[in-house]
């Protein structure tokens, strides 16, 4: 039975990063949009899937679909192995200390909400403070606002400088024994800024605060080591890292996790149930009530195998080149103004075109086959900070090429021409 088929990565066969061979692993990249070759630069919204991920789903459903953790039959055993095997892949991918520290969730959003509703309710009291940053996605703002409202705690926000970087001095001043939690993006989805997470953690821990990092936009771009970072919680999402939608993971330090109350009640999260008393299952199962998203968890594992085989360092190097090139070619268009010019940046360029609303730009780019995001990127406070209604965001992945960046630049020039 094929439950752990190895991905075929043709790209890593040579020392040079062979992007054309990698592109052939992603069937969607050969399609056309509006009669033009698809130039997919909306990877921060979701990434495309390699054939091995698509195959992992098909194989599961056509060969060993069964419920997990309960059956004695062959299919159930195979499904359980594949599902738990994917957990080990996630653990190794972010270098968590043990597999029990990985909790399956629906999304990075659910990972954050899980922490807010379990650890948060238990540990945040009236008068306490939670610190977030000015570049957070709504998913790392709203759960904390809800928690603060419920517990009578105060939400504080680390401001951004004009480049879209955290004002670390201000962060240091905000930290005090009142602060129980710091929640920050590892990489900003709207600006691409890579935050100095080790420093954030060090300063927070010195004051006794726990740190949650939203890693949804970080894991697709470079190797992540949660133990080296030292964070207490780390949220990630499968579909941002070339896996299926509908599944994500929460990393939580084992000691914290074992002390947390359960999230949802139901099957699989219990050791025994009577009408008088229920004994909860061990972690991480205590947090995984009900039949989980088995197929997509297995697909998530296949995606991790794939990027690991390509090599996260090779991916980071290729994307660094793309980012530099995109910055260079777009800078040569006088009407383009970048929003977010942090020194440390993932392969994301966010910009506005003088005299053109980003939604019009987005439509005109689409007509030329170039898929970007035009909007507030679920980060409205960031738009407010930079006094723009929205931006055009081109977010790159390791399968993008310099010639696709050229297509983006040509399309942007066309926007400028149309509106002037």
């Amino acid at each position, binding site marked *: 039975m094929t439950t752990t088929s190895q991905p075929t990565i043709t790209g890593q066969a040579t020392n040079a990063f062979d992007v054309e061979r990698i592109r052939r692993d992603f069937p969607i990249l050969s399609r056309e949009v*509006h009669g033009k070759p698809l130039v997919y630069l909306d990877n921060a919204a979701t990434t495309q899937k390699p054939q091995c991920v698509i195959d992992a789903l098909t194989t599961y459903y056509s060969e060993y679909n069964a419920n997990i953790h309960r059956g004695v039959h062959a299919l159930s055993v195979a499904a359980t192995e594949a599902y738990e095997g994917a957990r080990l892949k996630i653990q190794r991918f972010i270098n968590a200390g043990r597999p029990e520290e990985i909790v399956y969730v629906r999304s990075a959003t659910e990972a954050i909400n899980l922490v807010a509703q379990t650890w948060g309710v238990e540990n945040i009291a009236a008068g306490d403070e939670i610190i977030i940053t000015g570049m957070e996605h709504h998913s790392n703002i709203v759960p904390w606002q809800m928690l603060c409202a419920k517990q009578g705690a105060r939400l504080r926000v680390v401001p951004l400088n004009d480049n879209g970087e955290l004002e670390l001095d201000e962060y240091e001043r905000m930290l005090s024994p009142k602060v129980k939690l710091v929640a920050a993006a590892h990489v900003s989805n709207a600006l691409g800024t890579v935050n100095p997470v080790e420093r954030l953690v060090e300063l927070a821990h010195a004051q006794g605060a726990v740190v949650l990092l939203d890693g949804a936009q970080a894991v697709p771009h470079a190797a992540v080591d949660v133990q080296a970072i030292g964070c207490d919680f780390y949220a990630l999402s499968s579909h941002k890292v070339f896996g299926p939608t509908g599944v994500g993971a929460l990393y939580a330090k084992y000691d914290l996790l074992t002390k947390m109350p359960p999230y949802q009640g139901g099957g699989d999260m219990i050791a025994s149930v009577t009408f008088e008393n229920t004994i909860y299952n061990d972690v991480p199962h205590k947090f995984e009530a009900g039949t989980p998203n088995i197929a997509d968890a297995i697909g998530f594992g296949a995606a991790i195998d794939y990027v690991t085989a390509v090599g996260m360092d090779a991916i980071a190097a290729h994307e660094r080149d793309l980012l530099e090139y995109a910055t260079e070619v777009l800078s040569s268009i006088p009407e383009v103004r970048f929003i977010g010019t942090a020194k440390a940046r993932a392969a994301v360029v966010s910009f506005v075109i003088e005299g*053109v*609303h*980003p*939604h*019009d730009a987005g*439509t*005109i780019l689409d*007509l*030329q086959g170039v898929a970007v995001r035009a*909007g*507030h990127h679920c980060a*409205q406070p960031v*738009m407010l900070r930079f006094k723009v*209604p*929205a931006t055009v965001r081109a977010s790159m992945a390791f399968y993008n090429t310099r010639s696709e960046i050229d297509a983006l630049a040509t399309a942007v020039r*066309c926007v400028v*021409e*149309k*509106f002037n």
Partner: protein
Amino acid sequence: MTSELDDLYQEVILDHNKRPRNRKKLENADRQAEGYNPLCGDHVNVFLKIEGDRVREVTFEGSGCAISTASASLMTEAVRGKTLSEAKELFGRFHGLITGEPGETSDGPGLGKLEVFSGVCKYPARVKCATLAWHTVKAALDDEGEVISTE
């Protein structure tokens, strides 16, 4: 450039985006409504001066993409001078044009200049941009005193 692009962004739309007509607050407005598109954050305020059963003056305030700005601008030109029922009927026909469902009103008089928006129905993501000002003016005509959302 592609004909698709020219169909969507016709000269009239580009012109009304650059030089929106009647974009100002109307002092002493009889009716007013606010429209909001939560998807893109576009806001529009529409002001009406009514005399008898006729729209004497109509203006708007707000900013958004070219489609929504031009649509608001052309809406003010189209609605001015109409009776309240004519204006509501115009809303129905414009809505039909944009959503590609002309329905029973297709036999009526042509939409004139407003037909420049006919290309929008091919872009579902942009339909709300074109209809925001119209939903808002309809709310003002109906005198609904709440914020109108496209959602």
